[in-house]
């Protein structure tokens, strides 16, 4: 029950991300529908996952940066601000030096660290700079006293940057920093949660296609026998005699440089992974279903169906395949886990997900961090994956128990 709940949570998050993502892309392309902008709805998107929200490597798992660290971080932002002000003033010879100094010097000495998302912070600085430009166009403050309120407004804007965001935005901002940031300053939590989408996507597609393809092939092989059986058995024996991971790697590698290797089309770029995994994963269900159908086809209800005169394809689809449904379910949940784990391995090797975050990429990116003692990125990816895999293992175990007629409970 708990395991089912966990899976449901993961599935809900994954489908939610998948849904908003798809809706956005569709809206952008066709323009007939746009997703309303709301902080909650926008919290999990590719853009959010790739957004820089803090300084590099803020410690994760609820640990806030130490005060001196925060001051250092804030100082670096403010230095940048000052630099940009200076550049602008220098570029405009007629600009009033006093106005520039006044703004650049506003309470910067006693600066508290800006608890803003970096993008927000940049936006505000840009607004302030625009105001500054407008003032500079007009001329010296001394000669134009009416400019004073506008300068005060810029001062207030900058002062407000030093106050942490509150409300829903504040909550989301703090949540984004809850597990720390990676080396580019991106939120680990958002990336780990967003990766659920990729995991579910790959798990669903691969498990569905592999189970359906394998089952139908295995059932047909067992049911029709003869050369069909020989061909299918030869195919899967040959494929399964190669090491799984090597085969996966080679298959994905084959696609590099093709039209599927396009970073601008995230949907297309997953196709090589789907294809490679489906090509190797159908063997399991195929073998199991073939064995089961071999048993079923000798049963009397199949003979009864033949005596009625049904065609062989009809008997296979209507009478034989439905009775292997339990095996398909079990295999589905097994393959789902296998697909997710293999995606992680492939991504770790640099052959998997190329666009957007995934657990495999997170683990791969964290290798240099772990050496330096920053363990929260690999930790987050592993924990997220662990619970999903554990839940699926429990469920497939329960499925096996529930469906196995020999099992006495």
């Amino acid at each position, binding site marked *: 029950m708990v395991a089912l709940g966990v899976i449901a949570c993961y599935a809900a998050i994954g489908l939610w991300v998948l849904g908003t993502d798809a809706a956005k892309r569709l809206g952008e392309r066709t323009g007939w529908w746009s997703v309303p902008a709301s902080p909650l709805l926008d919290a999990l998107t590719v853009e959010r996952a790739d957004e820089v929200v803090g300084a590099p490597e803020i410690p994760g798992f609820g640990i806030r940066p130490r005060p001196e660290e925060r001051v250092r971080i804030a100082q670096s932002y403010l230095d940048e601000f000052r630099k940009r002000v200076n550049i602008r003033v220098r570029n405009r010879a007629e600009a009033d030096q006093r106005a520039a100094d006044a703004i650049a010097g506003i309470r910067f000495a006693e600066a508290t660290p800006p608890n803003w998302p970096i993008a927000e912070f940049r936006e505000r600085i840009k607004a302030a700079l625009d105001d500054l430009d407008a003032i500079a166009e007009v001329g010296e403050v001394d000669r134009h006293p009416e400019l004073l309120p506008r300068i005060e407004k810029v001062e207030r804007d900058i002062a407000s940057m030093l106050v942490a965001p509150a409300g829903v935005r504040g909550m989301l901002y703090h949540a984004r920093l809850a597990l720390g940031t990676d080396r580019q300053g991106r939120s680990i939590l958002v990336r780990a949660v967003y990766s659920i989408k990729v995991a579910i996507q790959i798990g669903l597609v691969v498990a569905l296609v592999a189970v359906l393809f394998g089952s139908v092939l295995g059932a047909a092989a067992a049911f029709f026998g003869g050369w069909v059986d020989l061909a299918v058995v030869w195919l899967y024996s040959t494929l399964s005699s190669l090491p799984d991971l090597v085969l996966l790697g080679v298959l994905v590698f084959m696609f590099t440089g093709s039209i599927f290797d396009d970073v601008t089309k995230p949907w297309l770029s997953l196709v090589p992974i789907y294809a490679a995994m489906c090509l190797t994963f159908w063997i399991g269900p195929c073998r199991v279903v073939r064995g089961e159908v071999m048993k079923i086809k000798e*049963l*009397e*209800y199949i*003979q*009864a*169906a*033949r*005596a*009625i*005169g*049904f*065609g062989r394809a009809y008997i296979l689809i*209507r*009478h034989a395949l*439905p*009775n292997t*449904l339990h095996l398909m379910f079990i295999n589905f949940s097994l393959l789902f886990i296998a697909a997710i784990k293999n995606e992680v391995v492939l991504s770790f090797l640099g052959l998997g997900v190329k666009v957007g975050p995934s657990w495999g990429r997170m683990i791969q990116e964290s290798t240099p961090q772990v050496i330096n003692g920053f363990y929260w990125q690999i930790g987050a990816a592993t924990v997220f994956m662990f619970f999903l895999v554990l839940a699926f293992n429990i469920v497939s175990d329960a499925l096996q128990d529930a469906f196995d007629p020999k099992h006495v409970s």
Partner: protein
Amino acid sequence: MTAVDSAAAKATAASAEPLLRVEGLVKHFPVRGGVLNAVRGHVHAVNGVSLAVYRGEVVGVVGESGCGKSTLGKLVIRLIEPTRGTITYAGQEITGLGHADLMPFRRKMQIIFQDPFSSLNPRLTVAGLLKEAVRFHRVVPPGEVDAYVSGLIAKVGLRTEARGKFPHEFSGGQRQRIGIARALATNPEFIVADEPVSALDVSIQAQVLNLMTDLKTDLGLTILFISHDLKVVEHFCDRVLVMYLGFVVEELPCARLHERAMHPYTRALLGANPIDDPDDRRPLTILKGDVPSPLTPPKGCPFAGRCPQVIDRCRSEMPPLENKSDGQRVACWAV
């Protein structure tokens, strides 16, 4: 089925043309194994069986396990392809017919299986599996399928609630009734009953047999009744064929079976049946040895090795099935 139809069935029963005629039917199953799955031998399941079943008649086939009686049943309705021999149904040979040409005969010939637990698809409801057959053969117009299926369920003595239930919700006897309903769904005239009661309790056996008797008279069915139980056959059939290792060794009417049996194997079979009267004693013939392997059947009479009346000729030459007095045929050199 109306009274007129069953009257017609009775009328044709007297005619000389049998509904089903089987001539020289042979079935050898190849045994594969070893290098490259080569054929290493053949199981001689059915060895040149000839029989005729007339309209409205119930013909029993008895014999011990592995004597080929079930194979014979499946051969007759073309579930298995024969190696040699011909099957003629209502004057038309059906041995070489393809899937499409066989369709009208599929509708007329049905089978009831032995094991009520493996003979019903566990994922189909009773109504589902009956409707499937009715729709496929367009037994009734689409609008009447529901009523027809309800009629079938009532006909085999199940309650209407059974419609929506799955096979696992029924007992063995009830499941066998469903199996009978399925066989009747296409409105057949000929039914192969492959040990329909041997998997059931004795009390349930009687119920199912009574049901079959009723259906036979109501619907004017012709039945090939396969069984290993001589008592059931004696009770239910008009004629009986005794099989041994794929051969028919004796064919005789069921009336006064004990007095008329001539073949030593038939007599041994009858002798093995317990008598329900403690005072009635008779000399017991206990057979020694085992049935020869169907992989390498003996050259002469297959029963020669166990026969109490064996003579030299039995070991070298298979006796032909010879006509004796009215309708009795025996394959034995000693009688």
